[in-house]
């Protein structure tokens, strides 16, 4: 059956041969850089980059919406900063790699015959989600850190599911190309590396330049999380030293609609839920308790991070005071009236960690309203969106 389909296909392409004009013509693309060798090297680099992005992305998703079997640890304190920093930096570095790869294999879009057999048809069909998904993921991720949303969907959900579609398409692609890639990379000197046109680029020159482009865009942006590079990163969407009290803000008090409730003198922090003695504490009450000072990063999902010196009441002390059971899990709720990130979960490891604070001060001053005045959660190894600001209540589960 399959063979008969293949034969019919071949006959069809023979009959359609007069259609081979323009880019469909044999030899339409002359550059030697469109070679298997270039494609193999770029493919390897992209395969590694996309794997890093996928793994760190799924991890970040699981931390924020944990499945039952998954408990994200509170240590090491800077792990999320590193994994999410890698997610964004790798995605940015992959932009020139992807464009170079698409350029290299562009002639194959017009390869003849377009479809040789069933396997070839399925492989080429899988290229649509691969190319569409790859471009979509890098473009939407870059737009997200530039806070530009020209579409209707909610970015995190669309980016997440697009990643599964793309990684599936990438698996098909690896299945189709693994053996050719391996054989090309294994050859020492596969074909002479001479430029197509006199004075033009060699293959090595092209690959070096593309690597240089990846390095260039990395240096131009990575200072948003690697502080010593901040003055070089002229295209970084954040500067870890710019913002109230010396570091950036993601959600402003105004956009969260807490300007009045957070500055109201009658503000109280409630500790309730599965506790023996529900608490209602004023700012003065909290200030009168034993304070702890810790140095912890605030690490945003969008790939920037900044370290600050935080001071406040250990969450653990409040839980003990309220008579919460051991290994308690806590929901921290904000004054923010609505929005997906108005509350966050503290699993038993985060709730029990001695460095998880109800912070009242940062860098030696009372919290700025933009940083969550009068009190916020700050804990080790948590995404920034889970460091709930403008605390209203802590509900023990």
């Amino acid at each position, binding site marked *: 059956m399959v063979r008969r389909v293949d034969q019919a296909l071949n006959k069809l392409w023979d009959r359609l041969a007069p259609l081979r004009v323009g880019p469909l013509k044999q030899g339409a693309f002359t550059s030697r850089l469109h070679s298997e060798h270039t494609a193999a090297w770029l493919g390897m680099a992209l395969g590694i980059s996309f794997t890093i992005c996928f793994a760190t992305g799924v991890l970040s998703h699981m931390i924020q919406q944990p499945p039952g079997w998954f408990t994200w640890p509170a240590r090491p304190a800077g792990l999320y900063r590193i994994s999410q920093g890698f997610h964004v930096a790798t995605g940015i570095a992959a932009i020139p790699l992807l464009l170079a790869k698409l350029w290299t294999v562009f002639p194959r879009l017009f390869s003849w015959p377009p479809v040789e057999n069933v396997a070839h048809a399925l492989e080429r069909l899988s290229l649509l*989600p691969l190319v*569409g998904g790859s471009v979509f993921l890098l473009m939407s991720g870059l737009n997200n850190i530039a806070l530009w949303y020209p579409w209707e969907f909610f970015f995190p959900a669309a980016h997440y599911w697009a990643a599964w579609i793309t990684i599936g398409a990438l698996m098909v692609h690896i299945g189709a190309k693994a053996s050719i890639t391996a054989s090309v990379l294994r050859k020492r000197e596969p074909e002479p590396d001479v430029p197509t046109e006199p004075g033009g680029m060699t293959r090595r020159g092209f690959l070096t330049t593309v690597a240089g482009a990846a390095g*260039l865009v990395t240096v131009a942006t990575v200072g948003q999380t690697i502080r010593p590079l901040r003055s070089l990163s002229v295209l970084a969407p954040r500067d870890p030293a710019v913002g109230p009290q010396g570091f950036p803000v993601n959600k402003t008090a105004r956009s969260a609609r807490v300007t009045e409730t957070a500055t109201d003198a009658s503000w109280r922090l409630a500790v309730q839920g599965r506790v023996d003695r529900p608490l209602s504490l004023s700012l003065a009450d909290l200030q009168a308790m034993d304070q702890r000072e810790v140095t912890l990063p605030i690490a945003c999902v969008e790939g920037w991070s900044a370290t600050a010196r935080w001071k406040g009441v250990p969450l653990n002390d409040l839980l003990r005071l309220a008579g919460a059971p051991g290994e308690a899990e806590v929901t921290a709720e904000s004054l923010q009236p609505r929005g997906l990130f108005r509350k966050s979960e503290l699993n038993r490891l985060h709730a029990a960690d001695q460095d998880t604070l109800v912070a009242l001060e940062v860098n030696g001053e009372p919290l700025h309203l933009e940083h969550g005045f009068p009190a916020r959660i700050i804990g080790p190894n948590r995404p920034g969106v889970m460091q709930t600001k403008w605390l209203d209540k802590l509900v023990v589960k």
Partner: protein
Amino acid sequence: MKSNAPQGKAFWIMLALGWAVMLFGVRGLVLQAPRTHPGNFSLWFIGSALVHDALIAPLVFLVAVVVVRVVPQRFRRYLQTALILSAAAVVVAFPMIAGPGKPSNPSALPRDYPAGLLTVLAVVWAGTGLMFAIRLLAVRFRHD
């Protein structure tokens, strides 16, 4: 003629696994339709491939033709290097410059991005220009 078709058992296994993973993604997308807006999502997803293949790629090939036809041989490699590096910088800077930014939050997008891009481009073109000058000098000394 050399066949472009994939073959072997490994391909079929990866095809099955890959399509299963893709279907998982599509299922999640559909189940969360109120957030993912599958119609609008598809437009952007397929549009991404189309915009690249029908717009960006032809434009790049057009530039390449100009470079090969018009630019003298000895400049060519340096110009190609500068163009590739510049294109990468322009793409990354594009949403910071063309997007609306976030004026209500002064710590978001705090820099002057057009100036930042010009700085990067200046460094790229000065760097490749320097490499070209060094090469010219080296050639001259070799002839002397």
